[in-house]
């Protein structure tokens, strides 16, 4: 009798022509924390979804406690005492914490919210959660929601816990709390699987690390025998020498000057607070920060998609030398001012492109209003589509194939290609290489560099610090909607930036509190 809580044998899962998991075999022991490490799109989440009953493997077997398990649904997973905390929370907004926790449970007799609430309170006290069991989910913050998810699986008596990138939305302190809880649970004999691509967390938390690469299982190592370097090698397959080209910035002049920009959402939560910086022509300004620190809102504010509470965004026109305030102008008004602003948003199909339309029609998105009369002019967009397909090597059956059917890399090429074709003076890109393979990523880096050399002010929001440091001339670090510092790309270290991502300089925090 082995100590294995879960054993996977030859698991394969395909989605259409894509193989998400290929013949994966691995083991998770009782009372251990296993990290599943892999780049975006390496198949980590798909694999775990098969344990939690969301997907079903095309081939292979799953053993739980040494017995072959048939996990057809999340309910089955729960019967095997497997609980998964998804990246996107599975909570019903209009229900209370208690109702969400007991959802789907077969109870003993009558439904008693009070009894369940008391039991939740017990769990909260045990682990030090600060949650009101009667609070509605829609009134909660992201970290509170995650706590509810954890309570949910604990309440259900899960012995095997799967967490999908749980720290992406947490502050360092919340992360540390979470890790302590997970360690307690491990000591309690539970098995914890944590999906992540953050090496420092892997090193800090886990006992073992399993590495996936492009859907394949690479191997499992003991954390104590591994280094960040060795894990990275396993993850990407070869030694990471990014070797991104960086030329010296030239002819730098102020292009976009932001002063004290603040943005508040509809619920009154402050998303950006007194953000001031300058983007210069001929350089790449990187923006680093934990996901959801205000990067999206910052770019949207510049693009005219966010209402500014305070501050100004001054654009210096390189041709006329005029200054225009972009504050609270619509994207259309900004364009009418002659500001050539290109923006590659994070959500490619949901914002940058129209998934059901072909490449030609997507090329028109920015320019369809041009030309005389009430009818569309499809000739130029068609030529542009052909040009982009050729120059960026977009793999597509034709210009009329809906872009939704293309692969992630090709979709991004179409979007970036269109935005570059507008000959921008300011080029903004949010996570432009997310989900892309190495070759496509380098293609994007080269395009950004070409823009920079052509004298465009490039703003690049990234998540991979190595890339930011090698690519950008200056890196602006954002934390909780405020700028915690701007560092020079050549001299910055990952540690510095990492610290700034999670901490505001004390002086500014004090200033913030005083307000």
């Amino acid at each position, binding site marked *: 009798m082995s100590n294995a809580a879960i054993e996977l044998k030859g698991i394969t899962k395909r989605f259409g022509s894509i193989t998400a998991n290929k013949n994966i075999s691995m083991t998770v022991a009782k009372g251990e924390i296993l990290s599943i490490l892999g780049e975006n799109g390496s198949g980590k989440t798909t694999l775990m979804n098969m344990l939690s009953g*969301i997907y079903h493997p095309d081939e292979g077997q799953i053993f739980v406690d040494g017995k072959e398990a048939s996990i057809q649904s999340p*309910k089955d997973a729960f019967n095997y005492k497997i609980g998964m905390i998804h990246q996107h929370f*599975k909570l019903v*907004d209009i*229900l209370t914490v208690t109702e969400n926790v*007991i*959802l789907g449970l077969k109870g003993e007799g*009558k*439904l008693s919210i009070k009894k369940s609430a008391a039991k939740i309170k017990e769990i909260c006290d045990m682990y030090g959660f600060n949650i009101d069991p009667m609070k509605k989910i829609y009134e909660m913050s992201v970290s509170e929601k995650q706590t509810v998810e954890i309570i949910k699986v604990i309440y259900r008596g899960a012995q095997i816990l799967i967490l999908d990138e749980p720290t992406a939305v947490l502050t360092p302190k919340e992360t540390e709390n979470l890790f302590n809880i997970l360690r307690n649970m491990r000591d309690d004999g539970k098995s914890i699987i944590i999906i992540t691509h953050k090496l420092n967390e892997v090193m800090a938390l886990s006992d073992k690390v399993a590495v996936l690469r492009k859907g394949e299982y690479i191997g499992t190592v003991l954390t104590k025998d591994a280094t960040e370097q060795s894990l990275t090698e396993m993850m990407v397959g070869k030694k990471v020498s990014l070797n991104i080209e960086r030329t010296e910035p030239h002819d730098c002049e102020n292009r976009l000057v932001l002063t004290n920009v603040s943005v508040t959402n509809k619920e009154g939560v402050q998303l950006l607070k007194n953000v001031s910086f300058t983007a210069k022509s001929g350089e790449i300004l990187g923006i680093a920060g934990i996901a959801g620190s205000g990067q999206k809102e910052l770019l949207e504010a510049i693009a005219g998609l966010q209402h500014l509470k305070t501050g100004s965004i001054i654009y210096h026109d390189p041709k006329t030398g005029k200054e225009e305030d972009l504050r609270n102008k619509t994207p259309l008004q900004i364009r009418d001012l002659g500001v050539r602003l290109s923006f590659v948003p994070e959500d490619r199909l949901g914002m940058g492109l129209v998934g059901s339309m072909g490449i030609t029609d997507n090329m028109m998105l920015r320019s369809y209003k041009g030309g005389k009369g009430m009818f569309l002019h499809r000739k130029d967009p068609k030529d542009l589509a052909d040009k982009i397909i050729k120059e960026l090597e977009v793999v597509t059956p034709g210009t009329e194939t809906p872009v939704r059917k293309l692969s992630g890399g090709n979709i991004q090429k179409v979007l970036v290609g269109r935005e570059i074709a507008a000959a921008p003076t300011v080029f903004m890109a949010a996570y432009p290489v997310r989900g892309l393979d190495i070759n496509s990523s380098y293609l994007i880096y080269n395009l950004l560099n070409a823009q920079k050399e052509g004298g465009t002010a490039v703003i690049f929001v990234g998540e991979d610090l190595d890339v930011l440091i090698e690519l950008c001339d200056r890196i602006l670090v954002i934390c909780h909607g405020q700028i915690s510092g701007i560092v020079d790309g050549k001299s910055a270290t990952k540690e510095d930036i990492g610290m700034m991502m999670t901490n505001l300089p004390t002086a500014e925090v004090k200033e913030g509190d005083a307000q």
Partner: protein
Amino acid sequence: MDFAYILSRAVAQGLPLLFGSNGEILNEKSGNLNLGIPGIMISGGVAGIVGALVYENSTPNPNGFVGLLVSMICSVSCSLLLSLIYCFLTVTLRANQNVTGLALTIFGSGLGNFYGGSISTILGITNNSIPATAAAYKMPLVPFYDKLGAIGTIFFSHGCMFYIAIAIALISWYVLKKTRTGLSLRAVGENPATADAAGINVTRYKYVATCLGGVIAGFGGLYYAVDYSNGLWDTQSFGDRGWLAVALVIFVVWKPNLAVLGAFLFGGLYIAEIFVPGLTSATKEIFKMLPYIVTIIILITTSLMKKKENQPPASLGLPYFREER
């Protein structure tokens, strides 16, 4: 003018709406915006008449209670069949809910009115009334109701369907609000992916809620057909009651307990010409507009207030497909 009598008529007018809206609430709580409810009500009602008619014509001395039972079984089977068509198309085959619902209403009202309109020709009978069954339906369960004064007239002069309607409404309210099943159903309508992840069988809940809702709505037609209209079906007279029931769902913000009051209010507006002095046959049509106007106002105010609890179920009208990627 006998006020108590008028109110009792308002209650009678409200009962089909109460059944109908209760059925629609169960549908919508599972995320199915079933626009086929009007069709189900009509065919569910006519099925009851057909059943009773066949029975009463088959025996020289029909027993009213057998007729009642037969008509109920027929109504339930018919409503169930139509609901299953809707479920199969929208849940299993993921057809668009609006389109399917409207097709079902075309089919259901066609089916009902086809048999209801030509019943004697089709069955080859001369006697097309169901006196025994209708009497059984109409028999007050509280025989001494007239001794209870106005309250007796308003609430206890009705037959068994009155009690069934109220009971179903209260049970629905209790189940939705206080039981695990209700909690699961609400979760399915709000966020099926979450419900699925919590181990709830989304498809089964949608099927059961929709079919049960359909049967309840069909009871509305049944009451109208065998009790309110004495078992004589007129293809014109059921009118817009089906849609009024859908309106009522919004009016009572998806709460079956409130539907009881709402139904009687709507029922009252339907017969406003009796008790509002000075209404001409023209202005009474304007009065009948009121339920819809009020519903629109409720729809606007709930959207304005943005109170989450008063919004339609979040996944209303959307199909659910687990392996979506």
